[in-house]
């Protein structure tokens, strides 16, 4: 009588990482494949995902069998918060409930944890300020991974790197945004005319999740003291009625017309180009040379929209 043939099972394991880079503390998606020889359907059996210390991060299960290999499908595990390269492994333990001799299998895999990207925004900076003038600007910070940034400290540094202001982000998102927390800062313009490159930075934030340093540059345009007043009266070219809310622009100076269609801009002497536009009016343009106070009636042609005949002329 022949001796009974000993049954030996060979097991191999593979891990596919869907994205090798993941934000700290965010979801990491992996797929684990286990192949046994002879071929076997292992659905329902479990694996462990272990970190570099051998601690079990997640228990997962083989859920798919394609006739050759067993798969978990997409499995989401939490990435660590520590930035840098991480080496984990999937462990398929040796089965204990079969007659087959099997040693189980394991597969290492790696991924990179990134600190959360931080976006710093600066807005409502006046387009032109006079030398030494105090002005306000709005600073906001948002985390690309949707962390709450309220309470973070921010600072403004001038063109020489000197701190100009510090502030703490408020508790409510800026209107219309989901997670942009902001604050207003008061700043002082340099004394001399010119365009200055300043910077807003995140100074400090809660450190439970690492964030990349955030900073953004913005311009402060210092202009000479004005010498003349440009008064614009915006009128509808056909009805001769005032146009309220029209944009009056003499780069970099800007204003909007009031209820009477009037806006004033104080300018230094010299050549200028005026645009009056907006509110569904085609731009009105006027080039001039400012030597004294001037009033310009801007007759605005309505952007009447194209008729069918216009379009298909």
């Amino acid at each position, binding site marked *: 009588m022949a001796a009974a043939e000993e049954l030996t099972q060979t097991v191999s394991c593979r891990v596919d990482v869907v994205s090798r880079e993941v934000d700290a503390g965010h979801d990491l998606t992996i797929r684990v494949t286990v192949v046994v020889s002879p071929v076997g359907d292992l659905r329902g059996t479990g694996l462990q995902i272990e970190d570099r210390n051998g601690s079990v991060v997640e228990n997962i299960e083989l859920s798919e069998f394609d006739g050759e290999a067993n798969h978990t499908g997409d499995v989401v595990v939490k990435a660590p918060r520590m930035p840098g390269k991480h080496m984990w492994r999937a462990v398929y333990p040796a089965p204990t409930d079969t007659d087959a001799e099997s040693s189980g299998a394991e597969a290492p895999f790696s991924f990179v944890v990134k600190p959360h*990207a931080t*976006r710093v*925004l*600066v*807005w*409502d*900076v006046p*387009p032109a300020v006079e030398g030494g003038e105090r002005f306000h600007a709005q600073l*906001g910070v*948002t985390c*690309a991974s949707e962390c709450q940034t309220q309470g973070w400290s921010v600072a403004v540094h001038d063109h020489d790197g000197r701190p100009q202001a510090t502030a703490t982000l408020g508790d409510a*998102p*800026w209107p*219309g*945004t*989901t*997670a*942009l927390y902001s604050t207003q800062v008061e700043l002082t313009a340099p004394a001399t005319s010119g*365009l200055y490159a300043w910077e807003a930075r995140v100074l400090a934030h809660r450190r439970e999740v690492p964030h990349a340093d955030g900073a953004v540059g913005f*311009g402060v*345009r210092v202009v000479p003291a004005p010498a003349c007043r440009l008064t614009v009266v915006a009128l509808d070219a056909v009805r001769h009625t005032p146009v309220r*809310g029209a*944009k009056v*622009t003499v*780069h*970099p100076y*800007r204003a*909007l017309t009031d209820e009477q269609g009037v806006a004033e801009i104080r300018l230094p002497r010299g050549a200028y*180009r005026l*645009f009056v*536009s*907006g*509110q*569904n*009016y*085609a*731009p009105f*343009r006027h080039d001039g040379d400012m030597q004294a106070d001037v009033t310009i009636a801007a007759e605005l042609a309505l*952007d009447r*929209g*194209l*008729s*069918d*005949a*216009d*379009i*298909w*002329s």
Partner: protein
Amino acid sequence: MAKTSDTTRNDHEPKKVNGLSRRDFVRTGAAAGLGAGALLRPDGAHAQGREATTDDIVWDYEVDVVIAGGGCAGLTAAIRARDLGASVLVVDQNFDPGGRMLHSGAFLSLGGGDPVQRRDMKGESDDEGFITVDPAEAPEELDDSVDLLFTDLTDWSVLDTKAQSPYRYNERELVRAWAENCPATRQFLMDNYVRFTRVNGTHGGGGLSRARGARCFLMLGDKTDIKAGTITAEDAGVADPERTSAFAPVQMNDASRFVAPNAVSNGVALSRPLEFSAREKGVEFMFHRHFDELVREQPFSGRVLGIRAHYSPRHHPETGERLESYWQNGNVEEQRETVSIGARRAVILASGGHAGNPQVRSMFYPALREPAFPTSGHALQGPHGQDASALTAGLRVGANLAGMQQNVSYPTTFHISTRLGTRDAYTTMMPGHPTFGFRGSAGVNVGSAGFEEFIAVNQVGKRFFNEVRLPSRPRGNRYPGDGGAPGQGLAHTPLDWRNCRKEWVREMYSYDHGLDAALAINEGSKPPDYYSGPLWAIFDQDAVERTGWELWYPYVADNGYFFKADTIEELAKKIVAGHEFQRVPLKHLARTVATWNGYADAGVDPEFEREADAPMSPIATPPFYALSIMVIWHDSYGGLRVNGRQQVVDMQGEVIPGLFAGGEAVGGFNKHGLGKGHVHGYIAGTHAAEDPAI
């Protein structure tokens, strides 16, 4: 019309054995009381299963005239042929007739001394007395003739502001026949419940010498009554600024300037009356059925005997129920996958052009193979609209082509819309019509002036042109000749060499190539097609507050054509994740915005010289927005070659017996829109009905 049941088909098998030729068999049918003009019912009561000369053909239906497409050419041809005694079946891929006509502006440029020109010359009102305003044009500007119309539309000397020659390549026989039939077609339309406003100007391609265009109108009333010429405000889509109706996919316009108070106008006032008349007269319709191919006795010879068409149901985007036509009388319900329909007298191809088929249209402009940009009326017409079905079928039976180059010689065949935030950017559709869900948003019409409020970027997030020049369009090949001819209006002298003197052309040339820059290859363009990708208007909250743009439903929606985000970087990510044709990251967007803000601050745009045209505003105040900018290819001007009877002509110059075509299915006539299609339909319907029966 006969639907051949299996039983009746068996009754007439096998044709090969008894040796009946197709003509023999028709005579047999006629002897049984099934002569031309008799509509054989789909219940099989008068079914005539029979074969053509090609023995394997068994007709599922049979009529005198089969018309592929129920738009301006198809409906007109159907009524005309029916008036002349033919039985008529219109096969349409959509669920409701009208084609582009239904969503059009219904501006119909005819002329040649047509009835509304004559009416307005005399200062008369319309027969029903709806029109109370004075004529919009002086009598001398309406004093037209067929000869002048023909001369205008074949005038070799005219160049437009794009330096294109709109008239010189027109097929002379085709245009002559068209001109001769304009007056009769205008009267025909009026006889079928279509009311015309005062004449005012012409449509593109309608000539430079006279005013020839009038709009179609209905009067607001307590009841929608085509015979009485009235429509309710609800049906007209004017009761609620944010709602239209199943009757009117596009809200109707105020036409009081050219009619009287309470007059409304657009394609509804043209399409619905014609449909009403067609159904009243016994024209039958088979919807949800896409015309696929022609059946000819031999592949490239003999008579065209009929068509094959497949079931192409359209379903409601929310409920999933099959969409049904507004009116039902005369509909033939048929859900078999493919049916063969025999035509005893003629087949008329009126299934539109090829603007909805990026593969076909790309032969004229390869960059427009980009599928992100649809043709107009995409939601209403569905995926098979303007898909080159007539062109394809015609070529398969040996038809010739005409005027293919005229696709690109019409100045505004393709253009950039000022309506942002919707894929269907040509029209103003609102919720209330069952196809609104296919577009999801009405879009925000920012006008040309609105283009100064944003930067326009391509699929990689780079600016590509001076934004404020993107929506500008060349003009000038129509009356009053305000760009394409020396002088104005009546000062135009036809056939004068000075019209195209190069000094004059240099002076009047006015074309911004922003559209071409928008379609240019960029870093995200990959072989083999090098798609240029979608275009985006990027702006900030300040722009919204300056303009008051309607960034809420139904103007915008979460449909992949509008995005809002806290930062520019997040905006770029949302576009990539949410837009069906955004194939690559907008990797330059943040840098582009930063650069732009520098330009806005300095008042100088070294890349595109915006400072010459309009002010520049920074994009800095959150939240940030993206609205899609759409390139639209509207018309087709190249197509099948036809003669003056609208008979399709083959590559040897011979008429293909039994086959007619009209509207955008044909080429050789560089005239925009309805005026061409209706007259083609009138001519085709006339001659198709007179074609000898087989």
